[in-house]
């Protein structure tokens, strides 16, 4: 299965640092390309040779299971040589700075670097010091563009469109890069975005990012086509941002009762990893309206699309 991809669009960017900066054509082009890879990934022979000879480094300063493995599979299926580096094994532990790591890796002539870092803006900082294409796999509370793209693909496949849908993003918006990337992407594609959270978990000024703000689930989920739940980090559960897990679940945890506030055909999403019983009830997470497993599948396809699109802009000489 070595036929070239059918879509031939060209991404307007050298790097994928965020959804911010992408055009609608970029987003649509990536989603269309990803559709091809969804089909490819369901076959026995999943390999393409687009990235043959290319070196892809996955540089993860923050632990990640699904994003890192998803990028690894995506690169390998396209024929790249993939190297994984994580904070626990790298010289970051020995005090080497992000910039020194970037300069060191750059000297090895990678073609693509996939970076996750705990600080907002870190990936952009690194991109300035390397010659290859850089993909943001999550920087602090800033952006996680491939997550937003895979969410968009999942929604589009199930609802047939993005435009005109009402999407409620619920939970820890303040610390969430997934929320930011989704807000920007969904707004760009003409969806209506609502954020639902206790005010302690909303960044002041969020209403100026083009979203409606709701403080309770009944109001927030009313008429929603998509309910997107966010993970609440453990350290934020006990008194610092919300009083307790049980109070949080009582008011903001997604159970069948609260899901009933949304449209009858509403679909449920979660970027994972889930805290069952904190932000989402198991019955909902595993229920008929849940798209959570499909999101993971779309993740590999979207990352293949991103890698392929960026590689089309790489020098060939």
């Amino acid at each position: 299965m070595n036929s070239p991809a059918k879509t031939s669009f060209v991404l307007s960017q050298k790097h994928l640092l965020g959804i911010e900066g992408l055009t609608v054509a970029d987003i649509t082009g990536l989603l269309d390309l990803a559709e091809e890879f969804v089909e490819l990934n369901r076959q026995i022979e999943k390999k393409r040779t687009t990235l043959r000879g290319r070196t892809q480094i996955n540089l993860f300063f923050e632990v990640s299971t699904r994003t890192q493995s998803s990028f690894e599979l995506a690169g390998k299926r396209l024929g790249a040589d993939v190297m994984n580096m994580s904070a626990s094994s790298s010289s970051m532990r020995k005090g080497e700075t992000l910039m020194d790591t970037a300069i060191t890796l750059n000297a090895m002539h990678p073609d693509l670097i996939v970076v996750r870092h705990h600080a907002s803006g870190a990936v952009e900082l690194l991109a300035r010091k390397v010659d290859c294409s850089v993909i943001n796999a999550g920087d602090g509370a800033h952006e996680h563009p491939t997550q937003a793209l895979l969410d968009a693909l999942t929604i589009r496949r199930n609802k047939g469109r993005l435009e005109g849908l009402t999407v409620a993003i619920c939970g820890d918006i303040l610390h969430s890069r997934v929320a930011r990337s989704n807000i920007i992407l969904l707004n760009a594609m003409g969806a209506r975005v609502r954020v639902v959270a206790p005010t302690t978990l909303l960044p002041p000024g969020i209403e100026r990012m083009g979203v409606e703000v709701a403080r309770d689930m009944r109001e927030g989920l009313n008429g929603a086509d998509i309910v997107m739940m966010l993970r609440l980090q453990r350290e934020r559960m006990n008194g610092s941002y919300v009083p307790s897990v049980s109070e949080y679940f009582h008011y903001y945890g997604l159970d069948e009762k609260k899901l009933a506030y949304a449209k009858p055909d509403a679909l449920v999403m979660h970027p994972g990893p889930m805290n069952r019983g904190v932000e989402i009830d198991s019955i909902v997470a595993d229920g008929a309206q849940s798209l959570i497993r499909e999101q993971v599948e779309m993740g590999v396809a979207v990352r293949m699309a991103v890698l392929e699109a960026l590689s089309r802009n790489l020098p060939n000489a």
Partner: protein
Amino acid sequence: MMLDRRPILLANARVVDPSRDLDTVGDVLIADGVIREAKKGIGAAGVPEGTDVVDCRGKLVAPGLIDMRAFIGEPGAGYRETLASASQAAAAGGVTTIVCQPDTSPAIDNPATVDYVLRRARDTAIVHVHPMAALTKGLEGKEMTEIGLLKAAGAVAFTDGAKSVTNAQVMRRALTYAGDFDALIVHHTEDPDLNGDGVMNEGEFAARLGLLGMPKAAETIMLERDIRLVDLTGGRYHAASVTCPESLEVLRRAKDAGLSVTASASINHVTLNENDIGPYRTFLKLAPPLRQERDRVALIEAVRSGLVDVIMSDHNPQDVETKRLPFAEAAPGAIGIETMLIAGLRLVHNGELDLLTLLRATSTRPAELLGLPGGTLRSGAPADLIVVDMDQPWVVNPDELKSKCKNTPFDEARMQGRVMRTIVAGRTVYEVV
């Protein structure tokens, strides 16, 4: 450095002396390290024999700047900045007196360290240097320092630098005790708990960048508390860096009530706003943080009205180790001593501030607050003055700045106006030939 001991006549200059509201074309005669006269038409005929007559036609002559807040790094962090390198930067920027901050290593919290800094400055610096001493021992916010002995040793004011004294009881006692010595307390007003993990001004821009914000209330609450304590104690108090209208309102009420309260704003906060941070530019990460444009405009208005007394550089050298990092992890602070005057001239050129007000806030007022002799061109004052070409265009090149660190927020900025000569105690310490 040129050692001109001959009398100097700066002739035909635009002479601006904010201490007298003077703005006229005239001459300034300097001899024996002091200003003899500054007025219209001294003329080359009326000067002592051997006087070096310098034609300053079209140039500004004004008192040298007194920078009320500069972090230096000596002792303890000479790789960031030494008194010598800071003084070179100061001279090139028209600053003739540096007031250095006590958060050195060791901290300037005992008379011996004050003495060390003064001697070190005498031996290595080309401009005047006066240290502020720590308000609390080790800058820990717990026990007050030897305010009397430190003042006698030469400390011009008392401050914990960029740290706030959070314990109100400690602050109350320090204000009370300092009052007995007529010592000025300078306080950085940011509530560290309310700022929490914030790294920039709270609001839409922080939300978009995914950075945690710091509310203006963190500054205003601490200032408000301090004002209540000043009211209680009668101490002499100076807010180190105000940035927003809410703080200005607190300040206005304190001044209206007749309290001995004054305030500074940094050159950064009167010339820049949070949008200048752009794509996570860490050189614009400051404490307190850059605010919104409407805050900056309010701050300028307060300088114009005299509500804010002083503009200072908040000079804070940080090297690549502390700045070439993700925004949240980078140290706050920007260098500014060399660009303070010229950045201020931007405000003059675009009509936001008149020249007399700018110079008053950067020379006369700091001198008055700190009890220093400069900031004036009156006869008998020390010959600390500057000659400035108000119009010369240039672009800030960090490599050409004299500071050891290059963390300027005006990196590659276009400037209009240049310091041509800086004279300290009658000696020319900087000159563009």
